[in-house]
């Protein structure tokens, strides 16, 4: 039975040899790491971008509501029946009431820097209608709310001049962003896959060359009775180091992008995206993202080196 201390000594040696080989192969490792950095940066970028898009959608969605303007003649009882009816609809999240006085106060507040307009308002009786605000669960499916309001006994309560506002322009924006998010996610996913495969192939190649360079040493190790893992271990350790360094670099690159290019990104997104949110998201989730990047980097390095050593180191006795 192999003693624990022996196993521990062996483990230490495997790690140390891997680190030494990494330093020796630094130039050879450059290509492997460069493409791995690209892969991990794309993964990170896709993730932050998609979080930002989703946040933008959520923000816009939360602002969408339906304003139902009521005739001045509508009684409190009629209004309660209407609001209760709306509350029963499955897609309705919230129903609120804005009285004529509240509407006037909000209007005045919004136009506080327009004394002429305020003066005119004061001289007439309150021209603004009272309204019921409906907040839908899903702003893209408000047809049932429309149908409800279009019932003749409900139409009779509505202010014919003001009309019902469905925030239609915002819906178009949401659809655009949703579409863009989907496209971006697909492109990101494809790019991640392609670059992950490329980085694995380059790691294969790097390890194949390292094995070729050290073939005499590996033969001697085998003849002296080194176990499979004693021989393979350093290659796996070396590739894991590529993964760790690449993960850290990808985080630094994205961080640098936010530090230097936030304002440029904000401008180029035409105000549609909240780059500030992307930045907050990135820094808020920094440790989770770093852990994720490290995990992906380590997995790519370990898997490709295990396959490469299996492929290029011959462990079987020839028959």
């Amino acid at each position: 039975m192999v003693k624990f201390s022996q196993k521990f000594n062996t483990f230490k040696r495997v790690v140390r040899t891997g680190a030494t080989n990494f330093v020796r192969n630094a130039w050879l490792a450059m290509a492997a790491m460069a493409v791995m950095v690209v892969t991990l940066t794309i993964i990170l970028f896709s993730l932050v971008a998609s979080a930002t898009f989703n946040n933008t959608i959520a923000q816009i969605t939360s602002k969408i509501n339906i304003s139902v303007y009521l005739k001045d003649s509508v009684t409190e009882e009629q209004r309660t029946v209407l609001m209760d009816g709306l509350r029963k609809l499955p897609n309705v999240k919230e129903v609120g009431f804005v009285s004529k006085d509240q509407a006037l106060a909000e209007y005045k507040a919004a136009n506080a820097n327009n004394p002429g307009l305020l003066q005119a308002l004061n001289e007439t009786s309150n021209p603004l209608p009272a309204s019921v605000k409906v907040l839908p669960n899903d702003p893209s499916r408000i047809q049932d709310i429309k149908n409800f309001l279009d019932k003749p006994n409900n139409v009779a309560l509505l202010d014919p001049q003001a009309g019902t506002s469905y925030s239609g322009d915002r819906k178009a924006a949401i659809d655009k962003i949703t579409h863009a998010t989907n496209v971006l996610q697909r492109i990101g996913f494809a790019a991640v896959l392609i670059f992950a495969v490329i980085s694995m192939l380059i790691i294969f190649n790097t390890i194949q060359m390292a094995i070729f360079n050290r073939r005499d040493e590996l033969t001697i190790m085998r003849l002296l009775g080194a176990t499979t893992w004693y021989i393979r271990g350093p290659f796996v350790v070396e590739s894991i180091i590529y993964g760790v360094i690449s993960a850290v670099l990808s985080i630094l690159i994205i961080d640098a992008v936010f530090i230097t290019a936030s304002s440029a990104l904000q401008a180029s997104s035409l105000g549609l995206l909240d780059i500030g949110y992307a930045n907050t998201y990135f820094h808020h989730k920094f440790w989770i993202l770093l852990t994720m990047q490290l995990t992906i980097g380590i997995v790519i390095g370990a898997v490709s080196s295990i396959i490469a050593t299996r492929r290029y180191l011959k462990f079987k006795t020839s028959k």
Partner: protein
Amino acid sequence: MILLDRVTKTYNRKSTALDRISVHVEAKEFVIVVGQSGAGKTTLLRLLTREEKPTSGKIVIGGVDYDKLKDKDIPLLRRKIGVVFQDFKLLPNKNVFENVAFALEIVGMSNREIKHTVPRVLDIVNLKGKEKNMPYELSGGERQRVAIARAIVRQPKILIADEPTGNLDPKHAWDVIRVLEKINRYGTTVLLTTHNQEIVNRLKRRVITISHGKIASDRASANYKV
């Protein structure tokens, strides 16, 4: 210690490297295997170190039946057999101490034990004081003695030396042979292959002659004849 029973090795239908070889070597014996190039000496040794499998026949070394040996147990087997090669197979970028220590690192020995063990073995092969030398700074005979130190540092029961003197001049060849004899006196079974007639004649040990894949003669103390 070493038992071969009707061992045959064929690489393809036309060439038979070894043809029903049966050999029995007792513990602590010193056996010389001679034969012309291509006679099958190296194949025989490669079968013993499990670099190759026999086509048929039975091999038992130190109680280990090779038929029952799994691939994953081969490293453990090789740790019990010391092997020395004609071309030394030292690691060129490691010094003498590190080359010998390498065999101990593989089996997970601690650095403290390694520091204790390696100098003692270098003393046995008469290389005390050369610890820091690189292989290219050594003569052929010294290099081969480093290789022997590496082969015996784990105290194997069997030492296999495949033409260890093949690349050496007579003086250095004898340095190596004397070290092998010394190791044998300490109780290790030694299996030596050689071309060198003088060595065979002067050693006066058991000689197994292989010719065309068969055992041509097996004598307790023989002279060289091919």
